[in-house]
């Protein structure tokens, strides 16, 4: 009945699939690194931090303003969305009930599925003009932080939701039995015991915020500069790749691949960090 006569053949082909899938990430690192290597010899590794500015046509490749831009964007977005994500998860477990909760959960799930280009488009059409009324030009660090915040909020809320689910019910009942109020129970029993689960989720969201391209590209104005206020336009590392890949050649091209390599390595470090956190949490 089964077309393969030998079970070994099946196992071997499944193993092959698994090998290919896990090989993809190594291939990505390999190919991106390979294209980035020429930039290590010329302009040289330190040039990315010491050159006068980012003028690729004049062989000036200073990445510092864009690194700062990316860090400002990601940290702003994560700092805003982490508390709100936790509050939303607390609602899902301890406050909401019935139809309201059902509808709210659906809303978060659907918000998580809205594509980044639509967030960017909405930001460009609605948010940027609103900010422009306060301070020109509107396309700014602030717009980027807000859009990125809205984008990672649903996944932040969903991961916090999962982390809270893992808190043992007995712990919560014990806290109530001791006469703690609801707020006290949530803040000093539930959240501390969900700590590592929350941390793992948040680390992964940092990676997402650092790597987001389209939404950021569409609302931050893309001027290469170190921002002096939140109303200044900035350019993120990812946007820089998207904007310049089309015409980049030689050193310029390998500088862009170098940026890509930095992004992969940061994500790699974040994933390893979250894995080791997970392991210590499991081993407890």
């Amino acid at each position, binding site marked *: 009945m089964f077309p393969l006569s030998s079970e070994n053949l099946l196992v071997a082909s499944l*193993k092959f*699939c698994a090998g290919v899938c896990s090989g993809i990430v190594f291939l990505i690192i390999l190919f991106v690194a390979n294209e980035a290597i020429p930039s290590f010899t010329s302009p040289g590794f330190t040039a990315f931090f010491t050159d006068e500015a980012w003028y690729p046509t004049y062989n000036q490749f200073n990445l510092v303003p864009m690194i700062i831009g990316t860090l400002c964007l990601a940290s702003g977005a994560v700092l805003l969305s982490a508390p709100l994500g936790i509050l*939303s998860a607390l609602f899902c477990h301890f406050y909401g009930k019935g139809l309201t909760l059902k509808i709210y959960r659906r*809303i978060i799930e659907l918000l998580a599925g809205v*594509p980044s280009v639509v967030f960017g488009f909405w930001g460009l059409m609605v948010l940027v003009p609103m900010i422009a009324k306060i301070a020109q030009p509107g396309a700014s660090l602030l717009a980027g932080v807000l859009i990125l915040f809205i984008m990672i909020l649903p996944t932040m809320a969903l991961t916090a939701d999962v982390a809270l689910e893992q808190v043992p019910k007995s712990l919560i009942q014990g806290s109530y039995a001791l006469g703690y109020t609801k707020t006290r129970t949530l803040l000093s029993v539930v959240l501390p015991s969900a700590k590592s689960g929350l941390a793992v989720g948040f680390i992964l969201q940092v990676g997402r915020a650092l790597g987001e391209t389209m939404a950021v590209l569409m609302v931050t104005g893309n001027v290469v500069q170190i921002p002096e206020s939140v109303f200044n336009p900035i350019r993120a590392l990812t946007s820089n790749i998207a904007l310049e890949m089309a015409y980049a050649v030689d050193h310029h091209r390998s500088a862009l691949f170098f940026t890509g390599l930095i992004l992969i390595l940061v994500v790699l470090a974040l994933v390893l960090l979250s894995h080791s956190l997970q392991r210590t949490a499991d081993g407890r």
Partner: protein
Amino acid sequence: MGDKLFSILVHLSVLVIALVFFAIVGDVAIKGFTAIQWDFIFTEPSRSGREGGVGPILVSTFLLLGICLSIVISLGLGTAIYLNEFTFHKSKFSKIIELSLDILAGVPSIVFGLFGNVLFCKILGLGFSILSGGLTLACMALPLFIRTAQSSLRGIPSEYRSGSKALGFSKATTLIKVTLPVAIPGIIAGLILSIGRAMAETAALIFTSGYVDRMPSSLLDSGRALSVHIYDLSMNISGGDLNAYRSAFLLIIGLLFINFSASTIIKKTLRVEN
């Protein structure tokens, strides 16, 4: 008193999240829906997309998704089955696979674009084509699909497998006759989620499947995805806003439908198991 304040804080933040959702989806839906007509879906874009419709762009999008899905199903299902049925959870090989999939899931989409551009467009010589774009999308969607398929396989009680073994069935027969049929709803949900992930993607496609908005004549032709179309209309084409709203409306409706059905399937299967 403190309880009441905190409760108000929680409810307020939930209200803010819900309002943000309605602000974004509502804005795109209202402006896109009032402007859309049936022929928008079928006609060719003209004047760089300012006028006309998105017919060829939808065709390119579906072709991209088709390639992506065929790779994701074959490689991803094989991997999920291997990880769950044919290896010990703690074995070194499976640990490496799981870790590399976690990293893959976190790689920024623009980096997938760089990678696809080098490997598929340049080294394999496929150029800016729907094939290159679809393969790049497949790399992106694989981890999500494998995770969902794996968790649906893991949800099957081990009695099913031991029962089948007690009847003298081989592992392969158990897989085809017992395990897979039970896991199918979860696997379909995983596929739907992967379609959603691939459809939402923009950055990885700009340098792999390209910008051309003609009707693609083959898989080796460049083709523009719907998400790339929205980006191009809103950023590069002045006067393209209205058609960008229409396209964003189509994309959002498609994705909401896709994600809604996936989560419905997942919730149904969970209820059966409990």
